[in-house]
């Protein structure tokens, strides 16, 4: 099967090159046979890469340790689910994964896109084939997963224990799907530029793809946070690591694009900006892959350093130059059809929302690259860690939160004073009350007060929109409240789905605020001894060390420590934290005899976590004091962590609502000029 896989890759190389050529040439000349050939090439590319992927999967499942990739990332005792996830767990396999998924997306784009956009599809085929071709080239010449060893080891090295977690089974593919699917909107953007069809058609064609990309990125980032929290054992979920930043960057620009695209659809403005944003998102998705694989910046998440970084750097430079040239050539065709009529309008608010989102993206990019820049300019290595990112980004984030509430309430084109009064009275009052309560309670953290009160303000805007919309339907159509809500959302999924997403963002911000109040305690305890600590919510926790046990699991040795936890004197339960030492077997025997076990990887930690709505109890067992029964622990009380996962859930629900079929496209007219559902009713009433 690996021979077939290798053959599939070589065929993909040829088909990809052909698809790229006929896609662009056929699109430019309009020759029907070439256009048809380009379409068939995307399907064929998908077919051969699926065969190549099956080849690798079979090798993984059959423990073909003669294949270097299989020996490097799996072992006989690795559970099947992790054997499958090893497909994208290593450098070479993940590159093949990129190629095959993009080829599937490319084929789906050709298959599912309405015939109305036939004029764009040949170029889309050209772009997707070109990007797949690049990944196939890297896979074939720099990181081939089918490369064979001169000998066959008895067992493989196994998968890094930190990757043996359910979160890691789905987090990387979700993130990859997000990264990869950005190629499709980008391809349509390029197609619009090359074909000179720069009306809003390409935006309508990519709407779902854009949301799909954004949704996958959101899910991937949330799952990444969860994995980091439960698996890495440091008690947090975001460390501003370069690889985390790399996933955040395209999310930010895609979020900006999702907003600014509305202005182009409604008002015919920001055409250049939208082209820049989608190109930037694609570039950042490739940049993220470059960061992860080049070793240019050290990160706990990076793949091993290899030559693939040079390929990615070359590709990035090529894309930047090509897009700059294409945009320059088409600049006269990207003029706005309308102008901003007022600084107090939804367009202006979205514009500033874009500015902040892209500003945050720039600051994250700048901070990520600053160590390299410093080394080049000053010859001095510096570290840019969480203190830097927090200092720069927290104020920007708070500003963004404020704009999240302001934007949807302001009318298109120009807001009147009366409109502002009517729309903002309740939300501003909500925010003010929240700030007053927190201040009265003695909270002194400015950022926390700002975040919570702005969160209340944004929640007020969202609830107001729903309440007014439901109330209006109830009055005008006599619908029950539940029915009115369902119809309200159903009639304008994009808008109300967007509000749900905003709610998810508010929940995120509130949850992130909790991190400012985290408390830690290190303690070494003999059995029966108790460590006490006070939580930010005022509870007193008592941790009683019960004991340590050591036992063997399928592919690891385990030391586990148990703690009895009590809160305010009430017993909560017993929590366990583990330290694990994975091993491989020097002979293909199951179960592996003790004398044949070889330690693999560094010991890993399984934190004990007990979560509730207020705070998480997070226990890490560090080890035992030599010659005693004394266990060393780190106890952490993490406020509001549960809300991070819930915020992610709400965000995804909002995204799915937005994505659900049935959303209609409307251009600006009298009914659209006023912000908010109630305002539309005012217009309807006047008519």
């Amino acid at each position: 099967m690996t021979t077939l896989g290798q053959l599939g890759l070589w065929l993909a190389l040829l088909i990809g090159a052909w698809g790229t050529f006929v896609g662009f040439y056929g699109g430019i000349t309009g020759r029907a046979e070439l256009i048809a050939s380009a379409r068939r090439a995307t399907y064929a590319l998908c077919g051969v890469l699926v065969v190549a992927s099956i080849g690798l999967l079979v090798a993984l499942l059959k423990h073909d340790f003669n294949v270097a990739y299989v020996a490097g990332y799996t072992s006989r005792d690795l559970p099947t689910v992790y054997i499958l996830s090893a497909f994208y767990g290593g450098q070479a396999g993940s590159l093949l994964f990129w190629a095959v998924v993009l080829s599937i997306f490319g084929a789906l784009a050709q298959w599912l896109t309405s015939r109305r956009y036939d004029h764009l599809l040949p170029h889309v085929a050209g772009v997707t084939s070109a990007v797949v071709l690049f990944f196939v080239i890297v896979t074939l010449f720099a990181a081939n997963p089918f490369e064979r060893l001169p000998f066959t080891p008895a067992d493989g090295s196994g998968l890094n224990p930190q990757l043996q977690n359910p979160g890691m089974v789905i987090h990387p593919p979700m993130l990859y799907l997000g990264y990869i699917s950005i190629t499709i909107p980008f391809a349509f953007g390029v197609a619009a530029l090359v074909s000179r069809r720069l009306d809003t058609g390409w935006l309508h064609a990519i709407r779902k793809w854009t949301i799909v990309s954004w949704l996958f990125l959101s899910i991937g980032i949330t799952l990444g946070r969860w994995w980091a929290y439960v698996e890495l054992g440091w008690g947090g979920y975001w460390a501003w690591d370069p690889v985390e930043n790399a996933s955040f960057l395209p999310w930010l620009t895609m979020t900006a694009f999702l907003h600014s695209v509305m202005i182009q659809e409604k008002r015919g403005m920001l055409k250049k900006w939208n082209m820049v944003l989608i190109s930037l998102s694609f570039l950042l998705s490739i940049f993220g892959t470059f960061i992860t694989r080049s070793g240019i910046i050290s990160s706990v998440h990076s793949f091993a350093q290899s030559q693939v970084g040079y390929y990615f750097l070359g590709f990035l430079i090529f894309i930047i130059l090509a897009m700059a040239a294409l945009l320059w050539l088409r600049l006269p065709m990207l003029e706005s059809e309308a102008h901003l009529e007022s600084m107090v309008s939804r367009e202006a608010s979205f514009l500033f929302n874009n500015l902040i989102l892209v500003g945050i993206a720039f600051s994250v990019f700048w901070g990520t690259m600053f160590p390299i820049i410093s080394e080049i300019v000053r010859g001095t290595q510096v570290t840019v860690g969480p203190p830097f990112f927090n200092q720069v980004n927290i104020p920007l984030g708070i500003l963004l939160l404020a704009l999240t509430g302001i934007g949807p309430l302001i009318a298109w084109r120009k807001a009147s004073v009366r409109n502002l009064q009517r729309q903002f009275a309740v939300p501003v009052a909500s925010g003010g009350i929240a700030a007053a309560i927190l201040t009265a309670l003695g909270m002194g953290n400015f950022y926390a007060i700002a975040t919570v009160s702005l969160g209340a303000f944004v929640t007020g805007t969202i609830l107001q929109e729903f309440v007014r919309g439901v109330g209006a339907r109830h009055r005008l159509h006599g619908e029950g409240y539940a029915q009115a809500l369902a119809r309200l959302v159903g009639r304008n999924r994009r808008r109300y789905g967007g509000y749900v997403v905003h709610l998810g963002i508010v929940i995120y911000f509130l949850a992130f605020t909790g991190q400012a109040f985290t408390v830690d305690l290190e303690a070494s305890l003999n059995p029966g001894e108790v460590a006490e600590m006070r939580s930010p919510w005022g509870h007193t926790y008592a941790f009683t060390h019960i004991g340590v046990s050591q036992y063997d699991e399928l592919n690891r040795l385990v030391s586990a420590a148990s703690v009895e936890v009590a809160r305010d004197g009430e017993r909560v339960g017993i929590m366990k934290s583990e330290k694990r030492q994975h091993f491989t077997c020097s002979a293909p025997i199951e179960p592996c005899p003790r004398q044949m076990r070889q330690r693999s990887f560094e010991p890993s930690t399984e934190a004990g976590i007990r979560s509730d709505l207020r705070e998480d109890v997070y226990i890490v067992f560090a080890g035992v004091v030599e010659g005693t029964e004394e266990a060393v622990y780190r106890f952490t009380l993490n406020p509001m962590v549960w809300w991070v996962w819930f915020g992610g859930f709400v965000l995804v629900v909002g995204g799915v609502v937005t994505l659900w079929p049935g959303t209609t496209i409307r251009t600006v007219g009298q009914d659209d000029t006023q912000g908010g559902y109630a305002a539309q009713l005012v217009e309807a009433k006047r008519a």
Partner: protein
Amino acid sequence: MRRRDLLGHVAAAAVLPLAGVARAQEPPAGAAVGAPELYDPFRVGRPRDRITDYENDPFIVGLESRMRCTCGCNLDVYTCRTTDFTCATSPAMHREVVQMVESGKTAQEVIDAFVARHGEMVLMAPKKEGFNLLGYFLPGAAIASVGAWLIWALTKRRTRVVTAEASDGVDVSGLVPEERAKLEAELSNLEL
């Protein structure tokens, strides 16, 4: 006794007898492992030191949170020593910090001592001086500049557009003040 209490005691009873005294030597790298010894501190990881007040001292924790562990883990010293239990670098750095604090050094002196030895890279964030200021202020300055430019450009363009529209529109110069006031009131009420 409630059921969950009972279960807790049963679990505790099951675990407690496993307690024993640690006695083992670190196996050589790559050697066979898995000797059935309870509480073998080398079985997973390595033996730990007993926790003292210094480990939880907010002053020391604060200092260590500002310094990066030099083992290449990308974590600050505090997070590394309480997370990456295979790392021997962060505990060593911690001991040095404790010694310096015990000897009466101020926070800045401790930081300076580490910077002198390891370079600026030992700080979790660059010092706010010289070229580093560009790192801190460029994003904010860029956003402020682009924002100011946006406001200027859009206001200028809007003025131009409004002027052009006015010149092509209805001449209102002949309105009497009452009519003008009425028009303005109507316009301000108009929901655009």
